[in-house]
């Protein structure tokens, strides 16, 4: 059985360099070659600037020092996403990282006790019961281990960074470890006549790069996965109509908030991602309801600082490559599918593809069973993330524009419909280990979007009323104490991971 | 509850038939079946011919029509008991079934009377008791129940032929489903494990089994005492009488009260019924022999004797508990207190009416049994103490029994009561059992215990007002008594033996 020796990554950017850096760390370049082919000409998308906590596993895999990484990428910390105007104009809710409350003896999740408590007159703002939410609201942050009494876990967070800088950082990492970069545009692909496997790619300048396994990070085009293997595309635009994004950085005018903000607009939503050196902004929208020019204009109007560049337009279609892995080619990043960055999932999907590649790492002769497993697992992940994002649109009271009226009334996938029904009944979401978004996330978003459960798990009634009050008050106090001990986000960054001036070049 | 409880009553007479009728009337056959075993051979005691007002509740509960019952039992009304020569020779007081003084003021009235006495008023406490005055004057009317007028200041009981009462009840009981078996018990069969009584083996060979046994076998206490071995608590040191002679005599004046006359070695009763008078002498063989006692009784009769005197033997005391395992004693099988205050039928009634709500299932719940025993204990003790009081509170030097009684040690609880009344004219009240304060008051005062003082709360009215109030009340009382029908006339109209139909309301108002 012949081993895969030569791995070729087609395309740079976040996807390509995440793949290359991970390969360089895990496979190493003593017995393998890792080659990445990218073209400066082809711009990288660079809107994927906020992340979710699993990225720490990726960084840990690579042995990246967090403080160094934060410095190098002008990163700030992220405790969650603030959603403004999503339920209705004037509403706000927070989707935090972290868990809701703490375990109350009894064996059912805290949200059930909280629902019971709210029904008997308690405060219907759940943010008070999530430490990350309270800290975010007060602009505080620090790395916090689990509490000594075991009542509260560590403070959960992710990063907000400049994706281009991240890619550059990873490129340095990968090249230090022996990955080789080729500058060039792919013009042709050589396949084995019998097996159909890709054997080499040919660049515009005539070079030929051969390999045993190819990772397609070529973006929306899917040069290999679609161009060669015609994997096909599942179009999800009937559920997720947004197909444009206009992005523009602006001046940082205040201390960076330790969270991303997403504000629902007339035909989509606007992101605001604070970095150490500037703020990233964008308007994700559907061009059937709003023109690109109008969207750009509106975005510029709504910036809270001076724009630092011209607005850039991206065009996309929500959906997924029907097969992410065909023969000896794995699509990673935009080539495998696109879901709008509403819940900062883009980098995560890249990361998962890479992690699964290591899990399923093939022989030269790829076992179709591995391909099948991989594709099915990725399907499940994509569907899950898709459903989660759709929920933000479907569950809303907004009906003030045709766009929202469409979203509100559209039919949704059966899987999501079932979840909404169960939640509406008793605030539960049946969580599977493969799910990315857990109970806390679904609860935060669905409740925040206005879906108030009719009841809750009956076991929550077994607690006497006074014990419930004490438990709820106790958790609230413990969270309050934890957050009170945190410094401000800006002070924290200043203390350990402020970017050096050299790194602030745009 | 699937199978009904099988209840076997051993013994007839008042106890047995009261129990049988009550159980059959109050509890449906789905819940219990009642069987009564009696023998004509075994004589019924039948001296319990005067009763206590509670009997009316019993009759009402089992749906007995008063007039009909009175007709069947040749009954007359009873407003109280007259005690003659008790305490001192020449005493003559009535223990009334009613309060002294106006209704609602009974807790303070005697204090006021004592004060008035100290200011010179010459009157008897009795003068202010409606029931006592009516009784003395041989008058009777049914009391009103809802007002504070004189007319509701009393209640009443009956004099009746207990034998006829038992017969009357038997008729009702058998109508209501009680099965009577004639027979004498030869042996009692126990359950080997629990010791419970399983069945009775009759001389005829018949076996009567049951779940619950009611022992109405009289003094012999065949089940509770003999078969289950429940011990006896003897009270004869306080109540030395151990015999009674009973003899009927011709009908006399139909006075609405029992008379009890203290004698040389005990006391004599006189109970007037519609058809005859019941007489008896309760005495102690420690102080007189049987022949002398019989002779004394016959000499004292006021009308012609209708039979030879019959003697009964007994001892004052009670079984240590009245409910043991699955056997409940009712009547003499459970204990005996002389009929000085007509409490025998009362004790039967109390046992039955406490048993009914606590009736066990096929397995006896000891909690129900313990509660029953506790309640019966209270009843016995309270009556016992009151009876002892009659004996203790005396200054007679003329006979040994009285000297003995005056000197004897009595229960601590009774001593306290006597001393407190002597000092402060205070009478304790309690919830359960007999006797109400008005009864204690009548005996204390009637037998010569005049308190040394009275409550200062009686001092709040000016002296002259007080006396004139009392005089006015007494006068009103006498007027009202005079308006009452005569007792014998009332009896004729209400339930006379000759009556074929019940009296009409108008007749009763005449």
């Amino acid at each position, binding site marked *: 059985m012949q081993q895969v020796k030569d791995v070729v990554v087609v395309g740079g950017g976040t996807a390509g360099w995440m793949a290359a850096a991970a390969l360089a760390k895990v496979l190493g370049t003593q017995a393998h070659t890792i080659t990445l082919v990218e073209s400066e000409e082809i711009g990288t998308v660079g809107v994927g600037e906020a992340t979710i906590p699993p990225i720490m596993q990726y960084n840990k895999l690579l042995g990246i020092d967090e403080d160094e990484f934060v410095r190098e990428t002008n990163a700030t910390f992220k405790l969650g996403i603030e959603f403004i105007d999503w339920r209705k104009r004037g509403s706000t809710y927070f989707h935090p990282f972290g868990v809701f409350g703490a375990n109350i003896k009894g064996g059912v999740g805290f949200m059930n006790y909280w629902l019971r408590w709210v029904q008997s007159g308690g405060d219907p703002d759940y943010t008070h019961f999530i430490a990350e939410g309270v800290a975010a609201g007060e602009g505080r942050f620090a790395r916090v281990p689990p509490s000594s009494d075991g009542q509260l876990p560590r403070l959960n967070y992710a990063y907000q960074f400049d994706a281009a800088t991240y890619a550059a950082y990873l490129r340095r990492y990968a090249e230090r470890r022996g990955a080789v970069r080729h500058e060039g545009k792919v013009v042709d692909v050589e396949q084995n006549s019998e097996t159909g496997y890709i054997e080499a790619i040919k660049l515009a300048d005539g070079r030929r790069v051969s390999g045993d396994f190819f990772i397609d990070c070529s973006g929306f085009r899917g040069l290999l996965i679609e161009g060669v293997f015609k994997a096909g595309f599942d179009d999800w635009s009937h559920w997720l109509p947004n197909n444009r994004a206009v992005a523009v950085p602006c001046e940082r005018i205040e201390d960076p908030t330790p969270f991303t903000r997403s504000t629902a607009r007339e035909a989509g939503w606007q992101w605001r991602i604070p970095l150490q050196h500037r703020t990233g902004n964008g308007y994700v929208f559907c061009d059937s309801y709003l023109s690109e020019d109008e969207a750009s204009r509106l975005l510029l109007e709504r910036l809270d600082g001076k724009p630092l560049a011209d607005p850039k337009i991206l065009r996309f279609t929500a959906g997924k490559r029907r097969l992410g892995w065909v023969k000896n080619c794995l699509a990673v990043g935009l080539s495998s599918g696109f879901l709008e960055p509403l819940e900062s999932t883009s980098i995560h999907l890249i990361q998962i593809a890479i992690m699964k590649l290591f899990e399923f790492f093939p022989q030269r002769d790829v076992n179709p069973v591995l391909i099948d497993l991989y594709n099915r697992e990725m399907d499940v992940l994509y569907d899950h993330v898709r459903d989660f994002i759709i929920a933000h649109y479907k569950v809303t009271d907004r009906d003030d524009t045709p766009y929202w009226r469409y979203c509100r009334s559209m039919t949704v996938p059966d899987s999501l419909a079932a979840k909404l029904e169960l939640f509406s009944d008793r605030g539960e979401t049946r969580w599977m280990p493969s799910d990315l978004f857990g109970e806390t996330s679904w609860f935060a978003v669905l409740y925040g979007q206005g879906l108030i459960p009719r009841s809750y798990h009956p076991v929550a009634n077994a607690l*006497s009323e006074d014990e419930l009050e004490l438990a709820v008050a106790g958790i609230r106090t413990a969270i309050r104490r934890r957050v009170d001990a945190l410094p401000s986000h800006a002070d924290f960054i200043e203390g350990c991971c402020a970017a050096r001036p050299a790194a602030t070049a745009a | 509850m699937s199978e009904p409880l099988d209840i076997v009553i051993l013994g007839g007479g008042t106890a047995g038939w009261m129990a049988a009728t009550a159980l059959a009337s109050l509890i449906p056959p789905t819940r219990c079946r009642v069987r009564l075993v009696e023998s004509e051979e075994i004589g019924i005691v039948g001296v319990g011919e005067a009763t206590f007002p509670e009997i009316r509740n019993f009759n009402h509960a089992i749906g007995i029509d008063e007039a009909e019952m009175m007709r069947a039992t040749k009954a007359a009304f009873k407003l109280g008991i007259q005690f003659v020569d008790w305490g001192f020779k020449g005493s003559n007081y009535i223990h009334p079934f009613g309060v002294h003084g106006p209704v609602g003021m009974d*807790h303070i009235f005697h204090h006021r009377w004592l004060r008035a006495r100290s200011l010179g008023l010459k009157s008897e406490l009795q003068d202010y008791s409606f029931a006592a005055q009516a009784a003395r004057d041989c008058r009777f009317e049914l009391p009103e129940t809802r007002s504070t007028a004189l007319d509701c200041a009393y209640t009443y009981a009956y004099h009746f032929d207990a034998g006829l009462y038992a017969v009357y009840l038997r008729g009702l009981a058998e109508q209501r489903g009680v099965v009577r078996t004639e027979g004498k018990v030869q042996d009692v069969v126990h359950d080997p494990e629990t010791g419970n009584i399983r069945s009775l083996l009759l001389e005829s060979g018949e076996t009567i089994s049951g779940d619950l046994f009611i022992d109405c076998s009289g003094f012999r206490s065949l089940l509770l005492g003999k078969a289950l071995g429940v011990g006896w608590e003897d009270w004869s040191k306080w109540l030395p009488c151990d015999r009674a002679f009973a003899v009927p005599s011709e009908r006399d004046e139909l006075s609405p009260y029992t008379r009890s006359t203290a004698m040389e070695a005990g006391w004599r009763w006189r109970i007037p019924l519609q058809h005859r008078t019941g007489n008896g002498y309760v005495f102690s063989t420690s102080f007189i022999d049987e022949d002398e006692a019989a002779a004394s009784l016959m000499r004292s009769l006021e009308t012609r004797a209708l039979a030879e005197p019959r003697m009964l033997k007994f001892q004052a005391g009670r079984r240590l508990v009245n409910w043991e395992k699955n056997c409940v004693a009712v009547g003499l099988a459970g204990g005996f207190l002389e009929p000085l205050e007509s409490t025998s039928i009362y004790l039967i009634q109390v046992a039955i009416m406490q048993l009914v709500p606590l009736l066990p299932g096929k397995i006896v719940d000891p909690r129900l049994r313990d509660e029953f025993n506790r309640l019966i204990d209270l009843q016995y003790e309270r009556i016992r103490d009151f009876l002892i009081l009659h004996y203790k509170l005396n200054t007679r030097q003329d006979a040994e029994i009285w000297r003995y009684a005056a000197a004897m040690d009595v229960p601590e609880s009774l001593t306290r009561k006597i001393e407190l009344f002597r000092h402060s004219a205070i009478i304790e009240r309690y919830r359960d059992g007999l006797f109400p304060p008005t009864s204690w008051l009548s005996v204390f005062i009637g037998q010569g215990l005049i308190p040394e003082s009275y409550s200062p709360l009686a001092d709040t009215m000016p002296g002259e007002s007080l006396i004139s109030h009392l005089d006015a009340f007494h006068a009103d009382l006498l007027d009202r008594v005079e308006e009452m029908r005569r007792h014998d006339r009332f009896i004729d109209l209400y339930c006379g033996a000759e009556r074929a139909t019940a009296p009409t309301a108008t007749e009763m108002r005449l």
Partner: protein
Amino acid sequence: MTRRIQQVVVVGADAPAWMAAAALLRSVSGAGIRVRVVELPTLLQPVDAHSALPELAGFHHRIGLDEDLLFSLCKAVPVAGRRFSNWSGAAPPFIHGYDRAPPPAAGLGFTQLWIKGRQNGLRTDFENFSLASVAAKAGRVPAAPKDAELHAAFGYNLDAAAYSALLRQGTIRGGVDSKVGTIADVEIEGDRIVSVILDDGERVEADLFVDASGPRAALIGRMPGADVESWREWLPCDRMLVASAKALKPLPAFSQISAFRHGWIGLFPLQDRTAVVAVYDGRETSDEALLEDLPALAKMPIGGDAIVSDLSQGVRRRAWVGNCVAIGESAFSLEPLDGAQLHIVHYCISQLMTLFPVGAGAFPEAPLYDRIIRRLAVNLRDFQLAHYKLNRRFDMPFWDGCRDAPVPETLQRKLDVFTARGRVPLNDDETFQEQDWESLFIGHGLMPQSYDPRVDAIPEQEHIAQVQARLNDIVGLVEAMPPVDAFIAGADDQRQTEMTALG
């Protein structure tokens, strides 16, 4: 005849002292007996409130106190009962309603019909057959026009300081001689108080001294043989905190008692505030920790005026020694779980009147008073103890302890007979009657295992009709009752603002 009582001196403060003085004024001053009060410093704080049982109305009537004044001057709120929550963990709360003896049904106690009904599938809770409990839940006051007969009554929550002031004013106007002072010493010879020496040197002498000084027991505490028998082994709570919260709107018709980990929290609505009382075991939690948890447990913010004190529960071996009679808390003391505090004072005073000594030389009335007061104390203690014994808060050491500990025979007997047959054996000197104990036991989940067999003689149709009729009657009666706010407003309308003379 020995020398009569000529002078009675009441030593104490607050409601007990003035209640005693008013009662004496009414009953004995007409007999020429002088009544004097030595007024010790008050034990009351502004947060203190009284919670009174309906029977207190009888006392007010006898001393001539117009009850409308309670509503206009003492911030009174009428309550038809107390609601107990969380004593059975997560089971629903129950109300102990202030019912008088309910009318029989088909000649038997209605409770027996209910027990059988329950066994046969009747789902309606027992509480719905209590007129007072239904009224309480509906926010209504069991008050009826003079001619109507209601078998429920209302108690009330009162501002303690205002009530005391009201009684004081009326009693002084009625002619009671009173002097403010503190006790420097008490001269005792054998079992007699010869004199009470005040701080200003006055030697106060009397034929009879009434100790109305509350837990201070300023007089009885010094008398021979009157030491306290503690009830700590059964009643573990030994701390009490009193605070205020803002007034509830709308005013409920009941007080609320909620159990928690270390004891219970009471909320007593008054017109201008809610009195918050916490009674707890000081060995299980500190005062500070409790105060921190209190807003969550009371479900409302707590004012900053909380007062904490020790609570000791027990009864004096003798409440009347020689010429010294103790009333109220000087005689015995219980936590305010069932609101009997003023009732205890009232009962002691009533018994004192009934047993008023006929002479100044000897006091044979005293042992009877002792026995009566002890019975009163034991019965009340048992009622309170039953709450703890019947708790169903499992897996909490404090509550497990209360449930597992054996109780005195007097209470065990009540529990046994009630469990066996749904009957409540009552002793002499019971504050609470059958219907109160039934409400307590059934409310805490104690279900009788069988019922009076006479119930089986009632045909099924009639049984159902009786049950239905009882429900309907209660609904009808409650509908006609006034809501709390309207009742208070009505009382205000007729109000006197001036306290006339009492006694």
